[in-house]
């Protein structure tokens, strides 16, 4: 007992050395299999992001067209590629359970409008940038992160990761992580704050209000 306690380092080393063959075996067997699987699982979401990015960049590049049309086209793409139901569940977290079906539907509708309006207005400003898809990563819950980087423009080098989840046999985006900042986490913290001092109806009213203001300004600008 005493001698062992006096040489903790030695004990650690011995333990580690004993584990090495097992570890090496695990690496040797598990790693290649895993990475081959990685590639095949992540291939589909990666392609999806690549194609969508190309589509959006080409729409943005048509600078001679009125921005309204381009933003509308991008919104259509967004409607298709985001899983708004799952995103709504994630941003509301525990509060989702408290809603009945009609309130849930209302929330998803407003959240969907919020996201597409918010990003529609923003995208409109960017037209010199390109998106480079440079990697994928398997995440817990069978999700896949697709890692992208902005090339050129004001946000040159900014890293944007898209987290995708397969549901009903379709890969769709459930989160956008910009420079380590998750959109879902950010909305979740803000909605929690609103729900802390109010009800879901207050939150819905606020969302409607925001969506309305954004629409108004867009019509004014257009």
């Amino acid at each position, binding site marked *: 007992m005493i001698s062992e306690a006096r040489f903790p380092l030695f004990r650690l080393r011995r333990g580690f050395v004993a584990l090495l063959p097992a570890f090496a075996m695990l690496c040797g067997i598990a790693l290649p299999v895993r990475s081959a699987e990685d590639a095949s699982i992540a291939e589909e979401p990666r392609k999806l992001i690549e194609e969508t990015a190309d589509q959006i960049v080409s729409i943005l590049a048509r600078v001679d067209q009125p921005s309204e049309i381009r933003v509308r086209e991008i919104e259509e793409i967004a409607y298709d590629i985001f899983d*708004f139901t*799952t995103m709504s569940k994630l941003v509301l977290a525990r509060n989702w359970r408290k809603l009945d079906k009609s309130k849930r539907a209302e929330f998803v509708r407003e959240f*969907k409008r919020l996201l597409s309006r918010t990003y529609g*207005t923003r995208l409109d400003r960017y037209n010199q940038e390109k998106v480079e898809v440079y990697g994928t990563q398997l995440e817990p819950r069978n999700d896949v992160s697709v890692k992208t980087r902005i090339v050129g423009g*004001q946000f040159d080098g900014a890293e944007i990761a898209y987290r995708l989840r397969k549901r009903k046999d379709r890969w769709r985006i459930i989160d956008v992580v910009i420079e380590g900042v998750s959109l879902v986490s950010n909305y979740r*913290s803000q909605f929690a704050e609103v729900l802390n001092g109010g009800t879901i109806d207050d939150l819905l009213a606020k969302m409607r209000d*925001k969506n309305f203001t954004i629409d108004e300004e867009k019509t004014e600008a257009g």
Partner: protein
Amino acid sequence: MKPSRPLFASLLLCLLEIGCATPERPDPWEPMNRKIFAFNETVDRYALEPVAKAWDFVLPDFAETGLDNFFNNLQMPTVFANDLLQWKPKAAFYDVLRLLYNTTFGLGGFIDIATMVEIPESDEDFGQTLGVWGVPSGPYLVMPLLGPYTIRSGFGQIVDATAASYAYTTPFWFGVAGLNGAETAGASIGQKGLELLNLRAIYLEDIAENRKEAFDYYVFIRNAYLQNRRARVLDQTATAVTEEEDLYYLDDEDGSADDEEEDYDDL
């Protein structure tokens, strides 16, 4: 104004036992922070933003970018030191290369040649170094005029700024110009001010949009700042490394089997 005793006591307590800021409760000083945040917002609205707008109006975009590059290049020695302190020799080597390229070919740092020839860029500061060394981030803190920090990042910035001012101002530039200590301090504050103003001008539209679209701008900033800082300490800005373990878990996981079919997207 007399410093409030509870505030002082809680500051001391938290410095002694930083455990009072937890991932679930990152902002134990929220009431105070919100007040300072509101003050900063007012200062921004009436002083910084209008000046930044004028700045943006006068200066073409490429000049703003150039100035930003110049300030980033000035940071390189501290980035280099922190890469060494975190034992990232390869990154440290690239830092030196970047500094050389941008200072010479990049005309004193105004053109980011290093990025054009694809020398990897690292972003390290002493706050991140402390994080890598295992120092906890401590509570969230909004500083008057300076904005969001954690105790760790704030302390780190003081160290970085002090080191940088020794490296640049004391022995060389300001000595040549014949400035005394107080004037040197004034000049380095002036430099920081210019850097801030230029950055504010670059992000005019983005900040205006975020402010308008946020449901609670204070929470928006706090969440974004803490997430980004954490990702940068871990060098994982490319993926979600959230501290909220349940972020991607559905609350109705245990629910009925048709949950997966539940869909409101087409409404």
